[in-house]
């Protein structure tokens, strides 16, 4: 099929002003016209910037400066000694770990409850999936004011229940990150649920019938049939949750702007501060590359673990 496509495609090409090639009997292949727009955009706005970013991370690069001197790995050694970066890393990793476990665990529990399609489980699925269409910043804004001590519903309800001094959710350095984490899970649990439900639909009913014939109860059927069949979907949701978690930005920006006193400042938040507020773009590029390496490493470990489990 491929060969046929090729030869006939070439035969048609000259009709549209083909450019003959010197050293070849082949003539201009119109396939290049098809890939041209994407190739140009990827080259200019993805590929070249990747190289440029690596280059910039080795320079003391400030926008508008007359000179951007080469500094070798100085940006990376500075990062190593930068306690604000380590704090951002801790915040990001904590958020990612808890949100991933929370959203996959809760998503799995809800999906198994709503597995069968009835009118009420469809309604509940819609409710859980609804936050998927809201932007992270709108979600962040709503929750920020929902938790506001003056106008927020949560504190008002808590004091109605007799709680004299409701917690200072986003104003407290101890509680701000857990609050952001809870909102992150709240936002993402429906996404996980949908992907897992789609995975569950593909589990053959025979497997359940066979398990029941063998006398397996609901829990046993869940662990012996549902979970193993869901492995690809679970791996996918875990990977996506991890990768998007490590890129945490929108939610924090809208809810806390990284505060109070950096207690919710994520890596990308710090990158934004350095690159687009302080315009230290070499340093910001170094942060971006460290983030890239962390994402690659974590994804590789997860894939590795998944594969070794498959083998064993």
């Amino acid at each position, binding site marked *: 099929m491929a060969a046929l496509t090729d030869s006939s495609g070439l035969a048609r090409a000259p009709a549209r002003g083909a450019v003959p090639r010197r050293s070849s009997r082949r003539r201009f292949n119109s396939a290049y016209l098809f890939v041209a727009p994407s190739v140009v955009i990827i080259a200019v706005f993805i590929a070249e*910037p990747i190289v440029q970013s690596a280059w910039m991370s080795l320079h003391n690069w400030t926008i508008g400066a007359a000179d951007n001197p080469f500094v070798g790995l100085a940006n990376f050694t500075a990062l190593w000694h930068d306690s604000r970066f380590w704090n951002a890393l801790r915040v990001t990793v904590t958020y990612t770990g808890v949100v991933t476990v929370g959203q996959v665990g809760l998503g799995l529990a809800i999906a198994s409850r709503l597995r069968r399609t009835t009118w009420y489980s469809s309604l509940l699925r819609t409710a859980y999936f609804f936050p998927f269409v809201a932007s992270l910043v709108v979600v962040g804004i709503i929750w920020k*004011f929902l938790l506001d001590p003056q106008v927020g519903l949560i504190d*008002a309800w808590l004091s109605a229940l007799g709680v004299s001094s409701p917690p200072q959710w986003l104003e407290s350095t101890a509680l701000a990150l857990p609050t952001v984490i809870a909102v992150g899970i709240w936002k993402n649990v429906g996404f996980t649920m949908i992907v897992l439900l789609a995975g569950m639909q593909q589990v053959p009913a025979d497997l359940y019938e066979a398990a029941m014939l063998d006398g397996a109860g609901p829990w046993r059927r869940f662990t012996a049939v549902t979970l193993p069949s869901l492995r690809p979907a679970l791996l996918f949701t875990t990977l996506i949750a991890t990768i998007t978690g490590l890129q945490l930005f929108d939610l924090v920006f809208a809810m806390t702007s990284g505060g109070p006193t950096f207690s919710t400042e994520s890596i990308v938040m710090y990158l934004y501060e350095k690159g687009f507020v302080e315009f230290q773009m070499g340093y910001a590029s170094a942060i971006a590359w460290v983030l890239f390496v962390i994402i690659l490493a974590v994804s590789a470990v997860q894939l590795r673990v998944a594969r070794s489990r498959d083998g064993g």
Partner: protein
Amino acid sequence: MAASEMIAHRDLGSERLGRVPTRLPGRPRRVASLMGAPRWAARTGGALSWLVVVVGAAAILLPFAWMLGVAFRTNADLYTDPARLWPDQWTLHGVRAVLDQLPFTRLIINTFVFAGGTTVLMLLFDSMTAFALARLRFRGRNVLFLLILATLMVPFQVTLVPVFLTIYHLGWLNSYQGLIVPRATSALGIFLLRQFFRQLPGELDEAARIDGAGNFAIYWRIILPNAKPVLATLFIIQFAALWNDFLWPLVISSQTQMQTLPAALTLFSSQSGVDHAALMAGAAISLTPLAIAFLLLQRYFVQGVATTGIK
């Protein structure tokens, strides 16, 4: 005997158990799963888990209900009784205020142009490239495909600083072309469409070629019409993602006149003494197009998430 078993099935509260006997009327009914768990425990457990799921769904929807309530009540009303979910008296104050305090119509247009324009170009360019990668042969095809896959791994933040500088040097900051052009192709879209195009039968192209169709005619008249459902799904998912996008428009557009809704609303929300009703009205309006699309086209949203998920 049969009657008591049916009661037992009901008591378990498990739909699947209840369904199996009706689907297989010839076979003996199975009560194996009842073993070990007393009937009352299973019943309570089932009811309890439904209760948790229903309360959870209410907790998911409550913030949105509250947002609507605040959008349509006066700020004085809100401060007097913040424990009330709905306004005493409904008012359009918030909607008027947000139109007043932000160039809101302009923001809506910007967001539509950015999300719509980018998605249309993205689908066009992605499908063209995917068509060439899947159905045509040309030198460098495999290398190109590998390069596109490789860019998928690199997080967006790595390219953000250099792309910002490029846009700055082009003089494209605070412009539609600056917002749209760099995002007008997506490696993920190319990848997904290529996988789909490869599954279409080769006879489609061959028959068209015998009839004298060229590559462009095959792409436009054969491949694209066959890919309509996939393109619709991709359109919805990409449009939603761009409508909600934050960091990119925040960096490219600093002038309020050229901002999109998420960025403008966030900056608005961080002003001290912000008008709560105006803010929540703005949030509600920015949510409305996608919420309506979601309720009407839920299947496409689910499909989009699931197909990009299961592959």
